[in-house]
């Protein structure tokens, strides 16, 4: 009996307590830039696609909702021919971002992704790619990698010697 009265009293007291909830969507909460929401594909400092279609994000994804196919441009870059994320499956875990060796795939604080039709949650590359570099400005994978692409021959990457002259016998 006593405990029931206490319970009623406590519930009653809550009527006058300060509110924890906000009036979403009129009022938006602050989400830090590291918050894990809608995924984007970013570009490198030169404005080229960062993604090299290495498939690491896809394999890291625990729900297997990323699929892509590698192709190679005439300029020697690897690039996804298509890149698809099925957001109706995505759990925003951020493992793809962790796995990405080029900072191409990044999660953004945009969490407002509701649709009436699941099909509308299937994003292709053109929906995912943004114009900027996202959270990691300044990094360009091809400046570090050993393969040559148009505009960067062998020996021109960061910390690389000029190519060896195989015919040279000098020590």
């Amino acid at each position, binding site marked *: 009996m006593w405990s029931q009265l206490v319970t009623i009293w406590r519930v009653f007291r809550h009527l006058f307590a300060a509110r924890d909830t906000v009036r979403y969507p009129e009022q938006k909460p602050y989400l830090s830039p590291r918050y894990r929401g809608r995924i984007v594909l970013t570009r490198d400092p030169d404005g080229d696609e960062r993604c090299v279609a290495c498939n690491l994000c896809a394999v890291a994804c625990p729900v*297997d909702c990323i699929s892509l*196919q590698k192709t190679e441009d005439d300029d020697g870059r690897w690039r996804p021919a298509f890149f698809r994320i099925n957001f109706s499956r995505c759990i925003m875990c951020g493992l793809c971002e962790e796995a990405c060796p080029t900072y191409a795939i990044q999660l953004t604080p945009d969490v407002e992704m509701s649709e009436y039709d699941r099909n509308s949650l299937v994003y292709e590359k053109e929906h995912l790619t943004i114009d900027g570099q996202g959270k990691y400005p300044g990094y360009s994978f091809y400046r570090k990698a050993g393969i040559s692409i148009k505009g960067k021959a062998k020996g021109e990457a960061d910390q690389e010697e000029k190519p060896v002259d195989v015919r040279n016998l000098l020590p």
Partner: protein
Amino acid sequence: MIKIFIDGQDYKVIEGQNLLQACLSLKLNLPYFCWHPSMGSVGACRQCAVTRYEDEDDRQGKIIIACMTPVEEGMRVSVKQSQESEFREQIIAAMMTHHPHDCPVCAEGGECHLQDMTVMTGHYARQFKGRKTSFNNQYLGPLLKHEMNRCITCYRCVRFYRDYAGGEDLSAQASKNHVYFGRQTDGVLQSEFAGNLAEVCPTGVFTDKPFGNHYSRKWDMQAAPSVCQHCSVGCNTSLSERYGSVRRVTNRFNAHLNGYFLCDRGRYGFDFVNSPQRCQQIRSSNKPAQWQDDSLQRVLSAPGRWIGIGSSQASLEDNFALQQLVGKDNFCPDLDDKQQSLMQLHGEILQQYPMASLAEIERADAVLILGEDINCSAPRMALAIRQALLNKARDKVETLNVPGWQDAAVRNVLPDNPVPLIWFGYGESELQSSAQLQLLCDDHQAARQGFALAGLLCGHNVGVEVSEAQQQTRQAAGILQKASRPLLIGGWSAGNPALLAALANLRKALGEKASMAIAAPEHNSLGLSVLMQKGHLSAASLEQSIDREPVNLLVLDYKSQSWRTRMASLMEKAKQTVRLGLLGNESAEEALLPVAAFSECSGSAVNYQGRVQYWQPASKASGDCLPGWQWLVHLAKIQQKSLAEVEDLGQLRQRLMADYPQLEGAWENDPRQQAIAQQPPRYSGRTAMLANQTVHEPKPYAEPQAPYRQSMEGGEPRHSETHAQPYSWWPGWNSNQSMHKFQQEYRGPELEQQHSTVAFAHFQSPGWFKWRNQWSGSKHRGYRLLFLGQVFGSDGLSLEAPAIAELCERAQLWMRQDQADGLGLKPGQWVQCDGLPLWLQVGISKQVPQNCLLAYVPADEALPFKVCEHFDVADLPQAEALEKQYRSHLDDLKTNMQMRQARLLHQDEFIPIRFVEGVN
């Protein structure tokens, strides 16, 4: 078996091995790079270091290189202590100082032995702050990509390419950290085994180029155990698929056949399954049609005699279903009577003697090659013969107490300890040039000498007078008599059954010590030999019946121009023709039913040894395609034949076994066993790859009762004892080096029994083959044409693979210098034979017998002559026009390749598959 102690634990290992091999056979994880089970040890990479202790009380020990140390009774070593682990980590660290930051854009990534070993040793951060060495790459042809920065100088590539496969144009150049593995200049790698470098090289220096162009990671590919379709060896392969298209072929270890290596025709030829020429649609009178169409049904149910024409490029099941449908007397296995008699004879020989597997070939200590260019007709067999040539040198080093796996030692004594190789025949090839004893002769002569040689060996005449024997034949008799494991090699490429008979006689004369291998042209030529045992229709009587009465033809597709020409003339006379087509849409048949390729349905073939091997589908059929036997069952329903009762492949095989009891047990399928998952455990993208078409993930597709499932669900392949591995993988071993986890041990000293069923019952008591009159050459005017093959060009199916088509040579005609002078021809000129429109380029060779010329014609051209009298030489404008034509052909190939690439990429995005439940 001897006892050794590893990390204090005692193990039993086989004597004569090296320590690395022993550890791997015990399934211990010991990193290594340069050692290869088929190539022995050279100790180049220092990665396999372990500590050896003098005795139980020795706490310090010293570091030794496992791959260079033979196991000894009571030996004590450790592989897990800190001292050797740190040593190994430092080796990797040193290799990594100059390694490029390439993994994400490296086609080796995800199946890279270097990645695996780096993780295994625990090395993770580069200490080196200097600049990295860089190298320029080379263009190495359409098959391999070169990215030299990634090399760790393990020397495996040159050891394989030069020492193992006999190639000459790849070498190690420069010194210290400038060592470079490549050619002198850019250019196509010449060896037909070059493609193996993609698997042999533990890094991404050499990678599979066509695969790289349409790339997928290993973990993403659905794989299936398969069998090569490009020659009669039937090498075991693994096919990989992604997004509905087949991406590549890799080697699947088979201790008895291919071991660790394939030839390039097998590795790259599979691409015909992605060809735009593939039949995808039912056609009736050269127009797209539906199965229910009246016109089509009328054709298929036509009354009158139906004659079936089998194909050695189709599976045993398809051919059997055809034989069942039309009846054995209406089943014509081949349009060429010569081929039919070879089929029959090869079958007869198999009933008398078993044929050597490639592993047995590698054990020979004397080799006779009789009238066969084995380098072209069965490339992998030629590679095995090349290994046999080391046996004397191996024996020699063993008498000096050096183990046979000390590769450098063996190669050192090789020049003084050759295995005798005897070559009777014509044409230049790798094996011909390494032969010790040669007799230049045409196929008739080779066969007669073979008969005479058999006579010399057994002491009485066998069909041919012993006195006919030439000097070389007498020498050969001495060599073969002395040898303890002589090997006899022959084949069908000369088209002469007498050669096969000669080999069988030689085998009988030499007795049990000898072994024999005869190469057939197609992967299922021997399957037709099996079916022929029940009777068949010869090509000659086929023509007669066509002339006599109106017949309906039911044809299994065969890809070669000479077949097409023959078929076309038959079709004109036949009432109507129904083709079960694989390739080529435009043609004149009344009905075309598209069949599924070997990558899309199960099937089996019989290899040169008569062994039944079967494959599993890696992908699904698209369009209207059905397996050939299924079309035939549908036809049987229309025509009300008993074949109509067959419901699935299992039932068809039951019937096959009932008719040919020796096939009993060829297809082991225990329905209680869990089906094997064909997709690797980290297969990605399942919930996205079809999402643009439907967000409802379809149920995985499975053939009913199939032992494999195209899904991630099912038994783990690596835990299955009975099923062939779809792909090779083990935790920590993502590369194909994981193979050792599945074998009892790497090609041990004793070879276990081959398990596959032999399709030929041994029942005849071996008798001598008599010389038959039709085998003697007839008199002719002019030159006899002897046909030669090429690895890239003679096989019609593989020519549909763009990479192989690029390497295919144009038709050629070889002659000796004196013949050329007599004819007034010069090398490089283009000639026509007796007015036939085909142009052949003149080449000069010493290996041309009297009164003969050697001709090579690619499979997409036909030269229907056996003799030729006069030649027309192309004049300058004609020659120029030919060159122009060839250049535009190459350009076409390039455009086709781009179009194909675009089509495949589109197909990846919109996967065109039927049978996925819930889609379409």
